[in-house]
């Protein structure tokens, strides 16, 4: 019963996967972004670094140029103001070098370049001061100055070249690193975009999935509450209640109707086993507790117990309880069960049982009475008949004609009583419970019946024409009696002046519209028809003739007890069949026996 919740577990598992994968994607994206940003920062730092180096280098050239042009101005004007920039040239160049050394400390090539640059610059400064010395010395020589100036210019060119080389190197270095960065981060934006789009898709999918699940959950919630309501009503109508006993937490919960069955308002007290036991009849409490043990220990089939409950209003009620142990998805052991208020059924059953017992008793009494009455009545009757036979043998010569007449009437009456008693005895025997069915050839039973009726058949010159009959599973002596009674009946009601001809036929028939309770069942019967050419009867009496003690004729015309055909009906019914009669006055009668195959 707990399997029902499985799809929802699946769904939550799916959502976990979505969540975890989305989380991973986001962490990945964050990592990529971080790296991208770091690269950008590194790249710009490198650019700034390179720019600083270049500007420092340019600065060096500028310092040199400033000093050069100052010296040229002084040579031309002799104004010492022009010498001002060259006064701190050494300082400035050293400072710039310190900065450059610091900036290029990780670059061995540039350090080397710096060393050569230093040499070149020192030479240039030496030339600069040499030119100045020549110009300020007394032996002013135009050629010497020009020579020194040209040398200085050439040296400056060298410095310039070295600086340019270094700048080129720096630019190249920058370009190489820039390319590397670019290569590194060029794919990142596309990756990020794709991943973002992917995670967006995942989120959208998850959203729809969750939405669907919620809808489903809502639906099942609704169904659940409807089912709950339905159960509540059903419990109220059916006078039962359901309960759950959580063995691990020892919680004992019961439904609203449990309270009603106990005569309380729903949830008017805390539900517990202890509280429930208070309502159980003190003598029956052990039944409940023992059944609980049995359910826990044996846990095979649902266990049913019966016990009594004393309701709040003091009324005694009979309860039936069925419980079974279940283990839910969380391996919790729960006994789930139903309590049933079966007081009405119980009381009905008791009264029914009592009445049944009474009925059985009176039936047995009736059978005994019938048997004994028939038996004990026969004794005196037989004695009377025997004495009559003695008188009619010995004393008839001494009797008057009237006495002989009366005597005949006495004999006839006694014979009637005898037949009546015999038939009653037979009828009660037909009623009796013992019914031993055996497979037997009906032809044999018919022959036996004919032997029994031999005298009457001969007296009436009767002919019995019988088709071959089948073998059937019957109570032999009853079917034999049936043949005797029906053939005997035909003989008795034969028409004066016509030899009785009795035709017995048999065929298999299927009866669909029998008063069977089951629809569409085919009932197969052997129909045995016994047809005679006797006085027949009016069809309106076709039913009446089977009723006990009902007769259609005067006693004197056709003697009989009115039991014979009732016995026939009884016998056929004992076999699960039925008997019908058709009659045409003065033409004959036909009895149809339907015996199920």
């Amino acid at each position, binding site marked *: 019963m707990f399997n029902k919740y499985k799809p929802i577990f699946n769904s939550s598992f799916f959502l976990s996967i979505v969540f975890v994968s989305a989380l991973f994607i986001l962490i990945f994206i964050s990592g990529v972004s971080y790296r991208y940003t770091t690269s950008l920062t590194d790249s710009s730092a490198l650019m700034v670094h390179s720019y600083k180096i270049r500007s420092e280098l340019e600065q060096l050239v500028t310092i040199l140029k400033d000093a050069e042009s100052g010296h040229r101005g002084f040579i031309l004007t002799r104004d010492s103001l022009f010498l001002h920039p060259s006064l701190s040239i050494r300082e400035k160049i050293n400072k710039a070098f310190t900065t450059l050394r610091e900036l290029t400390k990780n670059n061995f090539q540039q350090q080397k370049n710096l060393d050569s640059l230093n040499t070149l610059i020192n030479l240039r400064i030496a030339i600069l001061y040499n030119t100045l010395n020549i110009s300020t010395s007394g032996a002013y020589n135009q050629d010497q100055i020009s020579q020194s100036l040209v040398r200085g210019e050439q040296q400056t060119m060298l410095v310039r070249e070295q600086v340019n080389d270094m700048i080129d190197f720096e630019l190249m270095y920058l370009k190489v690193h820039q390319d590397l960065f670019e290569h590194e981060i060029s794919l990142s934006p596309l990756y990020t975009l794709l991943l973002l789009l992917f995670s967006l898709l995942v989120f959208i999918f998850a959203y729809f999935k969750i939405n669907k699940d919620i809808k489903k959950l809502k639906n099942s919630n609704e169904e659940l509450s409807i089912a709950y309501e339905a159960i509540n009503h059903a419990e109220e109508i059916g006078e039962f209640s359901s309960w759950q006993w959580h063995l691990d937490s020892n919680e004992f919960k019961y439904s609203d109707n449990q309270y009603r069955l106990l005569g309380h308002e729903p949830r008017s007290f805390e539900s517990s086993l202890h509280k429930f036991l208070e309502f159980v009849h003190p003598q029956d409490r052990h039944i409940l507790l023992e059944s609980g043990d049995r359910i826990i220990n044996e846990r095979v089939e649902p266990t049913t117990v019966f016990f009594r409950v004393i309701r709040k209003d003091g009324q005694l009620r009979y309860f039936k309880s069925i419980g079974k142990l279940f283990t839910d998805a969380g391996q919790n052991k729960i006994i789930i069960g139903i309590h049933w208020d079966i007081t009405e059924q119980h009381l009905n059953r008791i009264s029914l049982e009592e009445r049944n017992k009474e009925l059985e008793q009176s039936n047995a009494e009736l059978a005994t009475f019938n048997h004994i009455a028939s*038996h004990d009545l*026969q*004794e005196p*009757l*037989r*004695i009377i*008949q*025997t*004495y009559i*036979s*003695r008188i009619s*043998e010995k004393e008839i010569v001494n009797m008057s004609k009237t006495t002989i007449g009366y005597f005949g009437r006495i004999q006839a009456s006694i014979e009637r009583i*005898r037949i009546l008693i015999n038939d009653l005895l037979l009828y009660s*025997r037909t009623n009796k419970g013992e019914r031993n069915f055996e497979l037997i050839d009906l032809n044999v039973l018919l022959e036996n019946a004919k032997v029994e009726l031999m005298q009457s058949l001969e007296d009436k010159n009767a002919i019995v024409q019988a088709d071959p009959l089948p073998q059937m599973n019957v109570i032999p*002596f009853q079917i034999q009696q049936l043949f005797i009674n029906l053939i005997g009946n035909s003989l008795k009601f034969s028409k004066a002046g016509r030899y009785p001809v009795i035709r017995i036929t048999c065929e298999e028939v299927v009866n669909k519209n029998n008063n069977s309770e089951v629809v569409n069942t085919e009932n197969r019967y052997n129909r045995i028809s016994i047809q005679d050419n006797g006085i027949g009867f009016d069809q309106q009496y076709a039913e009446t003739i089977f009723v006990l003690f009902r007769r259609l004729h005067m006693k004197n015309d056709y003697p009989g007890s009115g039991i014979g055909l009732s016995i026939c009906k009884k016998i056929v019914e004992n076999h699960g069949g039925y008997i019908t009669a058709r009659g045409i006055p003065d033409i004959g009668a036909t009895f149809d026996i339907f015996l199920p195959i």
Partner: protein
Amino acid sequence: MLPNSINMQKGPIQVLLADDDEDDRLLFQDAFKEIKLKTEVQLVYDGVELMEYLSQEGAMKPHVLFLDLNMPRKNGMDCLDEIRLDESLKDIAVVIYSTSASDEDIEETFVRGANVYIRKPNNFNELKKILEKVITINWQYHTSGLNKENFLLSF
């Protein structure tokens, strides 16, 4: 084998009837008086008396016992059981002599060891006929205890 020798009996055939009905006893006696056979008829009134009679020391044991089934105090069935269990009585031919001839009674008495079953007739002539038949019967067949077809004797 006493029953076999009934037919060759030199003295009168000893007949015993156990029946509680006075009329039946009277008619029984009358019938034997009219039968041209040398018989001596003794009468007992019920089962208890019958068993007392049979257990008397030195008393003449009957050749044929006619036993009614429906008797007060001790019925014919019980008497039949006792007789068949008693070694000294096993040679007595037991004829069930009853009003009824129900299948159950016939079956039951046959199984318990009765030799013949006759139904009390309701005509005196028939009574005489059937008693004569019982006495002159060839007991060979009826003591074997296996002949169920001939068990119910009719006139």
